Structure formats: C-alpha cells, structure tokens
C-alpha cells in the first residue's frame, strides 16, 4: 500500500486500491502511445513469455467464441494456461472435484447463452458451485489479457469475498493477489496481473463513483443477488443504465431460485440459465398447533431430535444474542439430565451470532462429539444461531433444522426517523432457505414451529430488500455522486417509499450536502468521499472549526464500529464497574473517547492488549478495527486538507468543544426533556417520546441532549447521548433551529426563552463576548 501513498495521487476515497491507481498509470501511459509491455494486464504475458517460452492453449482461443471442450482441454494441460507454470498435483485433484460440480455439466450451455446475450440471469441453488466456477468459465471466454479488462464478481459479505477468492486461486493454481484477487473495504489484494477480482458489492459501488462507466471491467458478475443488499440493488440499477451505454459490458446476475422471474423481467427479459444444486431433499414438518412459546418449543424440539433421531447435527434459528445464550444454557442443562437419566448421546451446544468473537464463531466447525462409550448413542452438536447461518455460513453435517419462524430485522421509519431492530416473522423465501440448510450432506429434516396455515397466511413471500428498510441519506448522497439526477425515476428493482426518499433529501439539505435545488454542494461532495453516514461525515469535516478534529475523528471511528463495550451475562456488574472507570458524566460520546484514549495509552505502554481489553471489558476486536477505521479516515482527511487539531486537554473547554462539535452533524438528533424531573424526552421537530437508554453513563442528563441513534427495542430509546446547551443549537444550526419553522409547543417556547436570554446577555456584555 505504501507505494501509492508515495505517489501522492489525490486519493479520493479510502477504499481506493492499487488497481485503481494502476489504472491512472495506464491512462497516462496510454497517452504516450501505450507501449504494450507497460500494460499491466499484459505484463504477465511478457514475463511468462507467452510469446516465447510456452505455448498457452489459450492462444488458439477466440474471444466470445470458445467452447467448453476447448476450455476443458486448456484446463487439462500440463502447464497453467495463465502463468505458464506447471500445474501442481493439488490442481488436478481439485480439478477432478470441480468437474463433478453440477454447474460443470452445463458449461457449454452457459457459454452459448453467454455469447448471445449481454445480460444473463443465472440461477444456481446452493452447492451448485456457481460462485467459484462461473467466474472461471467467464475468464476462459473473456480472455482478459486480450483487452486488458477485468472480471469482477461481487459478494454481499467481506468474508465471502475473501474466502471465495482464496478458493478460486487454489483452483486455478495461482497465488492469491496475483491473477485472482479480492478487494474489500480496508483491504485490497489485487495486483497488476489480476484478471479476476472478487469484491464486496459496496466496494464496486465506491469504485463506480469515480468511474461511472465501470470501464475497467468487461464482465461484472453480481453474486447472491437474491440477498438484495442495498449496494447490490443500486449496482443493478446502475448496471442496467451502463449496459445501455456500453454494449461490450457483460453482466451476469446470479441468484437463488425463488425470485428469478423478477430479475428476468427487471433486466429486459434476460435469458435464464438454471442449474440444480447438489442438495438433498429435506422433509418439512409443521406443528399441528401454533406454539405458545417458541423458545420453549425450540428447546424441546432440539432435545427431542437428540433423543429420537439418528445421527446428524442440529441447527436452531433464534433471534438474538440473549435468546441464543439462554437457549444454549437450557439445552446443555437438559442434555446433561438426559445423559444421566436415559442413555442419550453427548451433545455439544454452540451459540452463533454476529457479535461473537471470531474464535468462538470458528468453534461451530468443530466435529460433533463421539459416543460416550463404545457402541453408545452417537453424539452430535447443535448450533443455535441468528439468521447469519441462513445464508452467510455453510456448516456441513447439519441434518436437522429447527425454525421458529422469527428473526430480528432492522427497519427504518422515515416519519419518526426511528430505526427499529425488532423480532418479526421471517418470509417464506427465508423459511425455505433455512430448511435447505438441512440438506447439505444428506437428506434432512426441518421442523417448523408453526402451522402450515401460518406458513401460508402469515409469512410474506420475500424478505424486504434492504433498500426498503434503511435510511437512505447515505444512498442518496452516493447516487448524487454517481451522477444520478432523476431520483424519482431511478430504475430500482424495488423503489423505496417516497417518504423515505423525502426524509433522506431533507436531511441532506439540512446538512448542507444538497443545496436548495437538490444539487450536490461542495460539502456534499466531500462528505461522499467518506464511507460514513452523512451526519458523521459532516461532523468530521466541520470539526476543525471547533478545535477538536482529532477527538471527533476518534469518536466517529468508534461510532462506526459495533459497540466496544463487552457485557457478558455472567459478569454484568463487573463490566459496568469497569465502564465506570471511563465514564464521563456529561456524555457517552466522551466516555467512548476516554475508553479509546485509555486503550491507546495502554498500547503505548506495551501492554498485552488482548488481556488489557479483557480485563476492562472492552472488545479488542472492535477497538482495533476502530483504530483501523480511524487511520483510513485520517488519510482521507489529509488528502482533502482537513486539518487535525486538538484543544489542549488542560483547557476547560476541551470537552465543551467536543460536545459542541457533535452538534455540527447531529443537530437533527436532539431531544428535550418533556417536563422537569421527567425521564421522558421529546425529539425536536418530530415530537417522539423517548427515553435515554439505560446503558448510558450520563449521571445527570441535562434538559437537552444530543443522541447518536434512536432505536425501538422494548421502548423507544435514544442511545449514546451527550448533554448539550440549547444556546449551542441556535448558534451552530441556525437554519434547523429557525424558530419560525417550529410549531407551537414546549420546544418552541423553550427555544424562544433561550433566544431572548442570549440577546439579553449580549446586550449586557456588548457584542463579541460570546465564545
């Protein structure tokens, strides 16, 4: 990475990568008649001497006219057609298994269709091998070295992008980061030789902000499109536009079976190729009656499976961390009983959820325990998971799935601007997906803890795509940056609700990212360079005005990673006590900052950071990733000449400045106490009644607080709050706090009083005495 820093190219975004930089070189060199040996995409051919040293079987290939037989021949050859190196034994071993994949049988069919269409919808069930094989088939047909364009394959998740790239590198017998690479946020492993690039969908979207035509790519494969992440949805709409402009760009949309028709009709009735997966039938069971307590029923079903069903691991889907830990505890207890009382086999119970440390997550791949004694009943493992096991993780050996039919879903309400994370029924599609997990290794069973009637009547067809469930402020900013002018007719597969769009526009307008005509302002352009929510980006950009950009940078980094506080169930009290060491009575933001400073302090003292974090109930993983994010953001700030300054710590205004700076981005997230001594606050302008989340470290909240997020869990809570003075609001965000725009009410009268007070004070002290 160092090399391109030296180059001093104006780095436009933190996710910029080597390949992007290389592209600039390429362009520059193309200017000087582009001698071929400098073309990074052709470089490997010269090195390996495609012209001299070895005869690649690819030489005879004609782009977009290859056949499966030709490709198979090339794959079988002794020398690697891409590098000229001899193939290793492992390559041939893998090749054999690759040839067994269901997708291989249809290679010719795929190529025929691929040649004849610009956009192809590819449907492959899990286990068909589509993610690893299709990009390689494309590679053998696109022959990237001939035109210097790459093939991109997007994945919704970083982990998938990394692991698939590694797998494919092995399959092609090349080194990861050379011919095959990956690019994810904060990490780029591609090189000048890279022909096939796995990347997250967000990464491709960021790249396209600076390359509106995606001109570096000859083929873009959108994998797991059925997951419908926000980035995938926007990419699809963009690609639809680009495809009309660039006839040479090929697009493959890969999805699971269920909504293929929707994809087809969206992409101008694109042809469809379906490949059956290698899955085994799964027998579905419903309960005859609705369950009164799904948790209880789930636990019992697991135990019953353990007692009565033949060998095979169990996967139980629950909604959240607490529930999962609870279920795990109960299952373990009951199993112990069962072993004691009746000759049951041993059973290991593993929880699995997003915030679990990776080491613990890895444990789910451990083998099931063996029988307790020879000839005894077989042991098994049960994995109690959130819906991350539904798609993101594949665990072999699962034969039984227990599905209570719920998951936690994040849903944004544009009216109250609250983001809720609530337990809600899953969709039919996701119920089928869950059931499918049981048929990976052999025929399995899925026990649904609801009636068939409920399945048919109460579940929606498809899970709502992310774009319908999210705050779109960031998306709108990105779209503006991508050059999308007409937001109303932007051809999304599922257009979001108009109110959501309005709210996003409004927020961006108040943040001064959009001017009154809806055009991107300079601030907006700058903010879009940060992979952050607009409010955070604006806060960061304006922090030098408050002499605390270093501190705000830290706070922003800490806010953009998962919570750094660890609060294990068995040590809640101690965890809270530890948190008190860092607590700042005026704000959770400041508490976060204290914790981070302590972390950095301990780091400079050469302490064992993992231990230190463990002792202080902090998450080492999240703190170090915050540290990483901070470094990346800092680099972006430097390239855009945003100065990094601090108020001296001794200054009494040190914390006040930070608190004021928070308002520069979060002036729309302010709440006022409803009445004195009440615990209920009212959000400004939206008049929602909220409480301060009990996790707060603010001991005596002021009448006015700024909050980081407004969540609906069991109640309407505001989380991560900091005390503020209402005078600051009038001073920092005069547009939003224009009294004329307020409706009559407590908040307006309170603000009027304050305005008067400020005026009086100014009159007494004379002008210029305010800070």
């Amino acid at each position, binding site marked *: 990475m160092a090399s391109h820093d030296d180059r001093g190219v104006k780095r436009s975004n933190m996710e910029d990568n080597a390949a992007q930089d290389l592209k600039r070189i390429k362009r520059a060199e193309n200017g000087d008649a582009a001698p071929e040996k400098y073309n990074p995409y052709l470089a490997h051919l010269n090195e390996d001497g495609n012209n001299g040293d070895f005869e690649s079987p690819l030489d005879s290939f004609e782009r977009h006219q290859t056949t499966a037989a030709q490709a198979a021949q090339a794959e079988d050859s002794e020398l690697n057609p891409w590098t000229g190196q001899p193939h290793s034994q492992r390559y041939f071993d893998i090749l054999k298994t690759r040839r067994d994949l269901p997708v291989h049988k249809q290679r010719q069919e795929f190529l025929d269709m691929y040649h004849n269409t610009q956009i192809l919808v590819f449907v492959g069930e899990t286990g068909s091998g589509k993610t690893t094989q299709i990009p390689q088939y494309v590679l053998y047909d696109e022959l990237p070295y001939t035109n210097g364009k790459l093939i991109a394959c997007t994945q919704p998740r970083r982990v998938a992008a990394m692991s698939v790239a590694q797998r494919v590198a092995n399959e092609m017998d090349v080194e990861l980061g050379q011919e095959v690479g990956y690019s994810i946020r904060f990490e780029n492993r591609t090189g000048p030789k890279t022909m096939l690039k796995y990347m997250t969908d967000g990464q491709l979207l960021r790249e396209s902000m600076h390359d509106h035509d995606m001109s570096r790519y000859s083929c873009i494969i959108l994998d797991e499109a059925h997951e419908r992440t926000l980035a995938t949805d926007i990419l699809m709409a963009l690609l639809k536009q680009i495809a009309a402009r660039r006839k040479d760009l090929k697009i493959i949309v890969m999805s699971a079976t269920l909504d293929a*028709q*929707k994809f087809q*009709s*969206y992409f101008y*009735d694109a042809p469809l190729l379906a490949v059956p997966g290698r899955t085994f039938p799964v027998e*579905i069971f*419903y309960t005859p*009656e*609705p*369950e*009164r*307590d799904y948790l209880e029923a789930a636990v*019992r*079903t697991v*135990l019953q499976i353990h*007692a009565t*069903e*033949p060998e095979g691991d169990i996967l139980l889907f629950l909604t959240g961390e607490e529930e999962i830990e609870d279920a795990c505890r109960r299952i373990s207890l009951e199993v112990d*009983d069962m072993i004691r*009382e*009746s*000759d049951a086999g041993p059973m290991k119970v593993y929880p699995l959820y997003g915030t679990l440390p990776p080491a613990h997550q890895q444990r789910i791949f451990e083998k099931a325990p063996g029988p307790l004694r020879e000839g005894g009943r077989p042991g098994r493992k049960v994995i109690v998971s959130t819906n991350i096991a539904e798609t993101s993780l594949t665990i072999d050996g699962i034969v039984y799935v227990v599905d*209570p*039919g*719920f998951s936690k879903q994040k*849903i*944004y309400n*544009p*009216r*109250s601007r609250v983001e*809720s994370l*609530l337990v*809600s029924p899953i969709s039919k599609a996701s119920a089928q997906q869950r059931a499918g997990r049981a048929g990976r290794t052999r025929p399995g069973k899925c026990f649904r*803890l*609801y009636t*068939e009637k*409920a399945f048919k*009547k109460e579940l929606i067809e498809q899970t709502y795509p992310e774009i*319908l*469930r999210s705050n779109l402020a960031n998306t709108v900013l990105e779209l503006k940056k991508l050059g999308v002018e007409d*937001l109303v*007719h*932007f051809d*999304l*597969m*599922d257009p*979001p*609700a*108009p*109110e959501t*769009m*309005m709210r996003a526009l*409004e927020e961006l*307008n*108040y943040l001064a990212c959009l001017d*009154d005509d*809806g055009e991107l302002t300079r601030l907006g352009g700058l903010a879009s360079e940060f992979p952050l929510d607009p409010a955070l980006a604006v806060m960061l950009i304006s922090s030098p005005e408050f002499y605390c950009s270093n501190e705000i940078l830290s706070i922003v980094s800490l806010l953009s990673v998962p919570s750094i506080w660890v609060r294990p169930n068995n040590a809640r009290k101690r965890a809270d006590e530890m948190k008190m060491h860092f607590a700042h009575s005026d704000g959770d933001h400041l508490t976060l900052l204290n914790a981070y400073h302590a972390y950095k302090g301990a780091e400079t003292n050469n302490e064992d950071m993992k231990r230190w974090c463990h002792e202080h109930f902090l998450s080492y993983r999240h703190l170090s990733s915050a540290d990483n994010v901070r470094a990346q953001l800092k680099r972006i700030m430097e390239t855009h000449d945003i100065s990094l300054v601090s108020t001296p710590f001794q200054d009494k205004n040190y914390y006040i400045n930070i608190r004021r700076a928070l308002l520069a981005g979060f002036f729309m997230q302010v709440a006022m106490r409803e009445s004195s001594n009440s615990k209920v606050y009212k959000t400004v302008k939206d*008049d*929602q*009644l909220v409480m301060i989340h009990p996790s707060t470290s603010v001991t005596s909240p002021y009448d006015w607080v700024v909050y980081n997020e407004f969540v609906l869990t069991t109640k309407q809570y505001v989380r991560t709050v900091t005390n503020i003075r209402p005078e600051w609001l009038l001073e920092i965000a005069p547009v939003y706090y224009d009294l004329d725009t307020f409706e009559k009410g407590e908040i307006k009268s309170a603000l009027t009083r304050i305005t008067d007070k400020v005026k009086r004070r100014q009159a007494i002290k004379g002008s210029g005495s305010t800070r």
Partner: protein
Amino acid sequence: MGLAAAKNKRKLGTDPNNTKWSRNETTFGQKILRAQGWQPGDFLGAKDAAHAVHHTEASSTHIKVTLKDDNLGLGAKRNNGDECTGLFDFQHLLGRLNGKAEDVLEAEKQKREDHLRNHYLEQKLGTIRFVRGGWLVGDVVKENVTEKNGVPQSDSANQQPSEDTNSAEPTENKSKKRKADSDDEDEKEEKKDKKSKKRKTDTEAETDSESSRLKKKEKKDKKEKKDKKEKEKKEKKEKKKKSKKSSSDSDDEDDVELSTTETKKSKKDKKREKKEKQENKKEKKEKKRKEKESSDSATDSEDSKSKDKKRRKDDTETAKSSGTSTTITSSTRFLARSRFIAQKKMAFADSAALNQIFMIKS
C-alpha cells in the same frame, strides 16, 4: 381483554406517527420529488417498469412494525383469559335451536362423552402396556415372521414417503411429535408449577382432554388417508419404509423414556423398562393397528370436519396443556375447575337459568 390481562402501559406522544411531517407538503424532500415529476400516491422508480408487478406495499409507504415482547409462537394468539368454556353444551343447545336432527346431536354427544371418559381414564390411571406375544394363526402362535409382513403394513401408515410433502403427512408425523412434546411439557410444568399457574386458564382441562382425543383421531384419520395412498405407492416406498420405520420406532421409544423420567419412577423401574423397550415397540404397533381398525368403522368425513373446527378453536391452548401421561399429579389442580364446569352444565340444563342468560322474558 379481561381485567386479569397483563398491564401494558405505554406513553404515546400526541402524534406518534408524525403525520404532521408526512402531511407537510412544503418540506424540501417533497419539493424536490415533485420537481422531478412525482405525484403523491405515485411509486418511485422507472415509469411503466416491466418488473412493476413485483412491487410490494413497502414501495409505497414504510414498513410497519409491531413490537413483539413475548415468546408467542408464529400464528399463536395470546390468551387473555377470555376464552369460553362449556362450548360443547352451548353448541348442543344451538344445534337444538337450529333444528338439527336429534340423532345427530345424540351421536355428537356420545362421542364427546366417550372421549371425556377415555381421557379421564387415561389421566387417572395411565395406560397399561402390553408385551407382544406374537400372532395366533390357526392354532399356532407365530413369532416375528408374520409381524414383519403383517403389522408394518398397518403401521406403515405412519411412515412417511419423503417424495410427497403434501399437507397430510407432516401434520401426521407432528402429531406424534407433539405427543412427545407434551410429555416434555409436563415435565417442565412440574418443575415450574408456580410459574405456569398464570397460564393455566379456565379452559385447560377441557382442552386437555380434547386435544388428546384429537390427537388420536387425527392419527386415525391420517392413517386412513395414508392407507389409500399407500396402496398406490406401496411398491415405491417399500425400501423407504424400512428405514423410516426404525426412526419412528425410536420416536415411540422416546415417549416411554420421557414419561418415565417425569413420573419419577424408581430407577429400577426405568432399567426394566429399557429392557422392555423392545417389546414396547411391538406392543405399540399393535395398539396402533387396533386403533386403526376401530377407527375404520367409526370415522367419517363429517367427523373430521368437526374435529377441524374444534382444533381451531383450541388452537392456542392445546399446544401448552395437552397431557397424555403425566396426569396423576395434575388431576387435583382441576378440582375447582370441574366444579365450575358442573355448575355451568347445570345452568344449561335449567331452563330458567337459560332464560336469564339469554335475557328472555318468560
């Protein structure tokens, strides 16, 4: 909602949906959207898009959420204690008023009483298990040979061919599963007696008995259906049956196991039972066969319909409260309740009381 329902106090603002904002047509967002040709009521997205048929409600307005703060399963309704008891008698009464034939009513009543009696017996004394002793063919008792050919045939109704996953089967299998479930349940109930008191609503005893009956009948019914199918698919499934059988057998086995732990028999007993497991299996098969035989004559389609209705009615209760084997302990609990039911019954029998109930002036 009754007075006994859990209090759920929640403070709401004057405008929790923020209609003030959504009605405001001068907001910046509306202005921009309108400038780009949007009209209130329109979807966003391309005009006349081919994929518009796939758009959902969520494209017009934000997704509504409901706060779920309990563990109620999907499709289950909260019982607020306002469920009716004594509906059988009421149904009877209504049937009479509607001029149903007397014999039909009588048959219904008969059925119900049979069921109640059976259930009572089961509750009070538990069932007695028999050990299989082979088949009497002519004068000779044949052992397993015949069993393998004969009994599984009838039993095969329980086996599930995995090819057809239509509605009949899964539920069928589940009913078995539920049996085990409920066993588990009782176990838990014993433990958490106090906790669960809340849940013990009035209808319990009744539904208790009902559900177990339903279970049985369901089975029978399904078996019948099964048998028909079976004939068609017999050959195909031959192989599967064998493998499946073993699993379903073990299912039954579990029933035994669980119930033993529950009733806290001495360990000795348990051991013996384990030895007997093998025999139990056989015996169960036989039982099923017998059931089936009797049901063949008794059940008809109408019957199943009415069952369906009933099932729906006690949708919420049965899952929790059906008990098949751990019943001795629970009987005392319902003393007060049975008295209550008796009173109700008396009221139905008494025309003066009925007139009062229906506010008929005589």
